[in-house]
Structure formats: C-alpha cells, structure tokens
C-alpha cells in the first residue's frame, strides 16, 4: 500500500478546485456584466465551437447545459425541474432541459448564477443531441430569438471529408449571421489565437487525465467532471489554459508526493455517461470507503480527441474553421457503438481498469441507448466485469443510492472473483 496517504479520501476540493470556483464565478459575473453593457449574447449547445465568438469585438456566450449541471450540483435541480413540469414539460424529458426551462421562464430565480442573460441568438447542433434543437426552439418561439442550427452528421466511423466541408460551410453561415445581427465584424486571426490557447489547455487536460494511470490513481473521475466546466464556458481563453496547466502540475506533484484521492485504491473503475451531478460528493466518498475509485469516464476522456481515440488532436495553426469542423465530434454522443467501444477499450487497457459502471440515464437516451451492447462487449471481449445502474444526471428524484450501490458492490465482488480465478489459473 502506498504510504504518505492523505487521510481524506474521494473527491476533495484542492487548490485547483478553489481556483476553479473563482474562474466559474468570474465567467458568470463577466457574462452578466457584459450582457448588461450591451454585448451580443449567444446561447450555445456544449459542442458548438465557442472560439468562433472570440472573433468578434463584443459577443459573449452562455451554455445552458453547463448552467443546468451547476444547478444540479448545487442541489436546485429538482426545484427548477418542477417549475418546468408545472408548465407541462414531461418528467421524461432531459433534466438539463427541464432545469433550464424552469430557470429561464422564472427569470433566473433560484439559480446559483442568477440565471443567464437573455440571448440575441441561439445556436444548437444535432450531433451531440438533437433534442437540444427542440429545447432551443421553445425559446425561439416564445421569445422570438433567432435560432441557428448546426447540422452535423452522426459518426459511425471517422468523419469523412464531405461532412467536414458541410460543417465548415455552416460555420461561415453562422459568422455571417452574427455579423448581420450584431453589426460587428469578424476577425479570423482572433479565432486562430483562441484556438492556440484552447489547444494548450487541452494538452494540459490530457496530462491531467493521464494521472489516472498512476497506481493509486492521481485523480478521480469526479475531479474531471468538475474540472471540465471551464472548458465549456471559457474556451479559447488564457484563464482556461493557465488553469489546466496548473491543474496538471498540481496533480502530478501530488502523485510525486504520494498524495492520492483514494490511497487504499483496490478497484479501478470506469464510468460511462454524463456525471451524476447531484451525487459527486456522496458517490465519491462512498466509493472511497469501499477502496474503489472511478478513475476515468468516457464523458471526460473524449474531450480534445477525434472519434474513437483518446489522444489529443492538436491544432496545427492551420485554417481555424477546418480544425473546428474536424473536432466538432469531440464528445461521446456523436459516435456510434464501434467508435465508443474503441475508445473505451483503449482507456480500459491503458489505465488498467478493473470494472465498468454503465450509468443508464433516461435523461440522455443518446448516450444510453447502446450501453447494453457495450456492456456485453466489455465483458465478453475484454473480459472485465461491468454493471448497469440507473441514474439521471441532474434530477436526483430519479436516482436511488441504495439500488445503485447494491449493484456497484456486486461489481466489486465480481472483480474479486475474477482476481481469484486468475490467481488460481496461474
């Protein structure tokens, strides 16, 4: 067992965590302030390439999904969901959407960030999830705000050049749309600079995630869930690049000093789905008490990669639109089963994963529908155990801790059984 172990375990607020809080606070303050001063406000889906907005003098953007995740993490998810449900929105709809609708139509009340400033433009895309288009259509219809839809083909294999060209053509349309609506001129050089900062940030992000290869792991997936937030709200900024560099350095230093989030780590687990935002602290602590650590998550290892890969796809200084189009699929949901499995298999092998938790999330069908076959492949082809638990990423009313942990504990027993079998056969 590793010595010098921290007496604390699970996901803890580190110096990076405190810095993160400051960045997020500044992001939302800045957003509200600039909007109040007349900036052109865009609401975007999480995989809309936010670096494009840095090409304008005074365009700010908000990310409703990220705000909803934060609301869930702060415990107001169900409250905002109920507001939307009272307006007629079904409980079966995505909880991010319900939180956002509840917040927006109640003027930002009960939001940890006073809500989001009203948009001048909505930009959605349909490769990460198509329902976001429907969600933004509600604002489009209710408030009369223009809605730009980035149409991005789903990937069953690597992106083909014709799809890339099609995406680039839409970026050009988006730029023209913002120029027309805001009266501002677009500067491509600024986007190039922003991309260089994003690329630096992602290089550090990958260094940070690599700390999971250490035994015990230098991080928990819960750390990565929390730390991905500024990637959504601060893409292209120096603050993001600096923060991720310090995050990577701090994590590496901790490993060198023998400080680990789960010092008695016996089970190295992988999480498949969106983070359970309302359970980060509880789930992390309870897992740690079982000497189990979620050391990786498909939700966060996909950031900065191409489809089916784990490694960083770096910006080479070329045409910004081409690069952005190439990474337009850099999340899990736009990928078919083959690509998802390929990336998961790499993560399992590189990080020495003992078992996988598939979080079946009825709020995110696009992530979840195919997990049953993924689970079969992981157990039959890779030969490690896996379980499926029911989770809703932002609505804690749809989560049962006891039921989930009954299955997770069964997973740990399966891992032990497998170890015994391996020992006996050798």
């Amino acid at each position: 067992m590793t010595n010098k172990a921290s007496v604390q375990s699970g996901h803890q607020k580190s110096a990076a965590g405190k810095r993160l809080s400051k960045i997020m606070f500044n992001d939302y303050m800045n957003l509200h302030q600039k909007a109040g001063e007349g900036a052109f406000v865009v609401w975007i889906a999480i995989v809309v390439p936010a670096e494009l907005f840095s090409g304008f003098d005074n365009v700010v953007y908000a990310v409703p999904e990220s705000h909803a995740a934060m609301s869930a993490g702060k415990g107001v998810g169900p409250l905002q969901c109920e507001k939307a449900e009272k307006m007629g929105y079904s409980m079966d709809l995505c909880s991010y959407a319900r939180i956002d609708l509840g917040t927006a139509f109640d003027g930002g009340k009960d939001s940890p960030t006073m809500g989001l400033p009203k948009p001048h433009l909505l930009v959605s895309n349909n490769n990460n999830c198509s329902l976001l288009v429907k969600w933004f259509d509600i604002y489009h219809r209710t408030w009369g705000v223009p809605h730009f839809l980035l149409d991005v083909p789903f990937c069953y294999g690597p992106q083909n050049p014709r799809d890339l060209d099609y995406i680039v053509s839409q970026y050009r349309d988006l730029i023209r749309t913002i120029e027309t609506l805001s009266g501002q001129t677009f500067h491509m050089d600024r986007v190039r600079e922003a991309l260089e900062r994003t690329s630096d940030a992602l290089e550090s992000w990958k260094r940070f995630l690599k700390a999971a290869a250490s035994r015990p792991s230098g991080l928990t997936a819960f750390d990565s869930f929390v730390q991905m937030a500024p990637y959504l709200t601060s893409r292209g900024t120096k603050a993001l690049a600096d923060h991720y560099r310090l995050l990577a350095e701090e994590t590496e230093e901790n490993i060198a000093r023998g400080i680990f989030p789960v010092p008695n780590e016996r089970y190295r687990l992988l999480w498949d789905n969106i983070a359970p935002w309302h359970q980060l602290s509880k789930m992390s602590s309870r897992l740690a008490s079982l000497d189990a650590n979620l050391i990786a998550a498909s939700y966060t290892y996909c950031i900065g990669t191409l489809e089916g890969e784990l490694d960083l796809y770096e910006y080479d200084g070329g045409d910004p639109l081409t690069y952005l189009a190439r990474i337009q699929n850099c999340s899990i949901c736009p990928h078919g089963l083959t690509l998802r499995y390929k990336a998961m298999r790499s993560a399992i092998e590189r990080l020495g994963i003992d078992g996988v938790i598939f979080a079946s999330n009825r709020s995110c069908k696009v992530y979840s529908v195919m997990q049953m076959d993924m689970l079969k492949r992981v157990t039959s082809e890779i030969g490690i155990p896996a379980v499926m638990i029911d989770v809703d990423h932002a609505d804690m009313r749809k989560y049962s801790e006891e039921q989930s942990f009954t299955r997770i504990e069964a997973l740990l027993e399966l891992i032990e059984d497998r170890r015994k079998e391996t020992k006996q056969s050798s």
Partner: protein
Amino acid sequence: MKNIMDGIKEIKSQGRKVIGCFPLYPPLELFHSLGLVPVTLWGLKDAIPRVEKSDRHVQPYACSVARRLMEFLLQENGSALDGLFMYNACDTLRNLPEIIDCGLSDAGRPLPIFKLHIPMAPPDQTESGAYLRERIERLIRELEKAYGVTFKPDQFRHSVSLYREMRALSKSLETRVAAGFMSYGKFSKIIEEGWFTPVEEQLLVLRESLGDESRKKDVPSTKQRRVVVSGILPPPMSIIRDLENADITVVGNDVASQNRALCYTPTEMDDPADYCMDFYRHHYPCTTLLYTADRRVNAIRELVSGTGAKGVVFIGEKFCEYEYFEFPYLEKVLNDMGVRTLFLDISIDDDENTAAYATRIETFAELMDSAG
C-alpha cells in the same frame, strides 16, 4: 391485421428483395426504382405484441417504435429482409444500426445497412442541396453494388408516379374520414398495412377502398365533434373506438405515419437528388424534421382552422422527446385559438385497460360541446 412476416416472405418468394426502412420518411421511390420492395418499419403493434429480444439490447425508456422495430429485426434473425435503410430521424433510432448489426452478426446473418444523413439545417440558413446530392448519389452507388442493380432515370420517374398516386389516394381516403364516410379506425388499418405492402398492391387496396366508400350514401352524424389527431403513430385501436364511441370525428390529421408522411410528393422527375431535395424541403412539417420548426406551428393552426376542428387530440408516443418538447407550446397556441386539447400519453403496452382513457375522452367531448 395480416401477419407482416408472412407478407414479406410472400414478396420474397416472388424473387423480390425487401429493404426494411427505419421510420419516418425514407425515400421509398428510390428503392422501388432499383427493383427493391421498401417496407417502412413502424406501426408494428399488432405484429409485435412483446419485445423480449429487444429488451436485451435497448432500455425500456426507448419509444415503442424503436423497441418494436428492434424486435421485428431480431425475430428469425432478420431473415425477413435483404437490407436495412436508416437516416438521422432521431437520437434513439440513430443508435440502433450497430446494435442491430451486433445482434444479427452474432446470429451469423449480417444485413447490409444503408445510412443517409438528411440535412436538418433550415434552407434559409444553410444551402445544403449539394451535400444532399452527394449523399443520395453515394447511396445509389451503394445500393447498386449491394444488389447488382442499375439506377435508371425512367424507372425512377415511374416509381415516383406510383408513390405520387398512392399518396394522393391516401389523402382522398383521409377526406372520406373527415366527411364521416369512413371510420378513422378503418383508415388507420389501411394505411398501416400499406407500409408493408408493395406500392402496386397498395394502390389496388386504396382504389378499392375509395370505390367502396364512395358508393355509400350514409349521411354523416350532425352531432360530429370535430378533432385533429396529432402524434407519431395513430392511437391504439381501443382508443380509436373510444373516440368513435364519443361521437368524435377525425377531421384533420397530423399523425407522422399518416398525413405527415403522405401529404406531399414532388412531381415526376428523373433526377433522384433533385427529387429528394424537393421532397424533404417541402415535406409536411414534423417535429423530427428539425428545419420545419418555423412552419410547424402555422401548419397546425391552418389544419385546425381549415377543418373547423374544435379540439386536438395529442397522442404522445411515450419517450419521444421531439414530440414532448412541443406539446406545451402547441397547447397554449391552440387554447389561445379557443381550441380544446387532450393529451394522451401512450406507452408500449397501453392497448389494454384503457378505461381511464375512455373517461377522459368522454369528458373532452363534453367540454368541446360546452365550448360551442
């Protein structure tokens, strides 16, 4: 309803190849012109009462369309079909091809699966014609290679004319329903069976049905309670009976597997890419065709006012987020017009124990009366 599997086997016994198309709006004419028999895999409720095989692959919170489609394909290891076609209709359906592929490959009978991305960017925002053209041309090349066939423009033109006629006759049948000369239940059965029938036979059925109905001299009930029905699928037959028992007449149709799919056909032309561009661009608005969002609310308004409907019955396909995101807004729009709305949430097994629905339908009918 006739056994779908037997029907498909009968087609195949004639030496014809059958391609199963995922809902909602596949380019049927294109497959037909290549000598294939396209069947659209929705409305499988009667043929697929249980979904045990599907439940091993797809969670229960997928919609009934996806679960039944999956079950149908896994039955007899997919032997009913010679190929599958899917396009980006929704988030759930787009995840299925590889799951199906895994299931069938395990059984040693992989099926060719053809995929198409239909541009969803609004036409006034992004010009996507060239992109769709390239995708259609690629699809044709893939089909030609897979089945050893050759695309012929004159054959395509002929196929278009057949489907054009099929849609026109279906629309005529729909007007018979609105006029009270045909039950909505009977109409729904004819249309549903049509999705699994070669278009040539479908035309015979439609012509015969129209002939039968036109000979009837029944006078529609003066007590008509006029409604529009909206949803992905028509209501289950038990609910249709409840509607008819409550003297409710379906005078307008916004069902995806009925009017939304049948409303529009471009004129005959030789170029399949031009045809598809026209077909999708001018398609009747649907919650799943994302670029039609701006036309959709007006289409519903016009359907209601044009038919003189006093109410709209929304048939909620449980877990269809595309539909569910729109209901509250549409309900408000309709209520502002003085139109009553009834929302029925239909799960996969909601064809039994429908007494609660009957009560709600009767109340809804009375409320329409009180609204004048």
